[in-house]
């Protein structure tokens, strides 16, 4: 179990993370979504045991991960900027990981390199940026990590490789029950693969929960009425936006679909339908509520 226990981290005057708490069980994929500079990478670095939080703890099975060799053996952080030893080939990295990580598996690395079509004896620095991301992923999975922290990993991969990565991830999740955090911006991708998500904004984790719960925080309704929606019906709802066009109105409301639907029935609609919201739309609504780029 991976746990962030009220983590606060400052860089000088800047508060990068403020009281972030999170608990993730084995075999769980968590999507970390956030605005630019929200503190996503900082959170991942703290969880990987590289950065020391000013307050709070990052824990793996009830032991603090900071500078904890045993925990760090099991946690793998895939950074958004690939960095390798200068001039190294995958084979060199293989030897390096064998020396440092007890569970490093050269056989698995060889197989993964094959399925991700990566040459093992060429200098990694000669590869393109996307290919270097692939190298990071195969090196990470070769270590048999229990926790995989991916920083914008999807964003740099082409569709074919993204698909390949998802397949491999699915397999290792069933076989090894690893806990994964995917941080990034491709919300469509997150919506499809994550069990739960969290929105990070200016260092605070605004909302987190399973995907259904997040998607149900707002709803969008299309309604047709003869005489408009009575104001007493509207005032009973926390309406975020309302667009009217003659008899047709489209409104976005905070609240779950069923409650809002039942309330709107009071407006005696000719036609009433819920339009599903995507994670992206919910994220934008949430950020607008926080006053970000409105």
């Amino acid at each position, binding site marked *: 179990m991976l746990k962030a226990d009220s983590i606060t981290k400052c860089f000088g005057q800047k508060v990068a993370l403020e009281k972030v708490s999170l608990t993730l069980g084995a075999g769980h994929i968590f999507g970390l979504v956030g605005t630019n500079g929200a503190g996503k990478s900082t959170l991942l670095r703290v969880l990987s045991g590289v950065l020391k939080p000013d307050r709070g703890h990052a824990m793996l099975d009830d032991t603090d991960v900071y500078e904890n060799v045993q925990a760090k053996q099991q946690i793998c952080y895939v950074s958004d900027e690939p960095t390798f030893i200068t001039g190294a080939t995958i084979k060199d990295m293989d030897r390096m990981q064998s020396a440092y990580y007890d569970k490093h598996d050269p056989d698995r690395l060889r197989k993964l390199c094959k399925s991700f079509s990566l040459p093992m004896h060429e200098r990694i620095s000669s590869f393109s940026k996307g290919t270097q991301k692939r190298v990071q992923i195969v090196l990470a999975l070769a270590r048999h990590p229990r926790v995989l922290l991916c920083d914008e990993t999807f964003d740099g991969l082409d569709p074919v490789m993204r698909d390949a990565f*998802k*397949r491999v991830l699915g397999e290792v*999740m069933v076989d090894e029950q690893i806990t994964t955090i995917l941080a990034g911006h491709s919300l469509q991708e997150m919506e499809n693969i*994550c069990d739960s998500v969290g929105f990070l904004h200016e260092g605070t984790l605004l909302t987190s929960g399973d995907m259904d719960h997040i998607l149900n925080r707002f709803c969008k309704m299309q309604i047709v009425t003869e005489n408009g929606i009575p104001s007493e019906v509207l005032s009973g709802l926390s309406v975020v936006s309302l667009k009217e066009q003659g008899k047709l109105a489209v409104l976005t409301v905070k609240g779950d679909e069923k409650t809002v639907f039942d309330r709107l029935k009071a407006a005696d609609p000719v036609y009433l339908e819920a339009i599903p919201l995507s994670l992206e739309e919910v994220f934008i609504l949430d950020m607008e509520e926080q006053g970000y780029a409105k």
Partner: protein
Amino acid sequence: MFYINTRDKTPIYEQLFRQLHEQITLGVLEPGTALPSVRSLSSELGINPNTIQRAYRMMEEAGLTVSIPGKGNFVTDDTAGLQHEQRVRHLEAARRELTALRKLGVPKSEAVQLVDDVYGG
């Protein structure tokens, strides 16, 4: 064979559930056959194994499959249950179609006429 549409806003577990449901009630997946393992399906479709587990759980709750620990999930032998499911499914489809007709402004009398035609009332 399953087809997941990631552009569709229907949740993936729901899409999977519907397709499994359809294949079982249509008889594509015969009683007693094993559903693909979570691992193989997850790898084939590139989706989260927990999502597949969820769809499988829904199938079991709907009485369409039985899960045998350590062996996997199998299509139920209970044909009465299957028939009931089929009935529910077709009634739902009929309701959807009727709703569509109503939205198009087709009068009730015409819809009733249709029912009479079919049932020979």
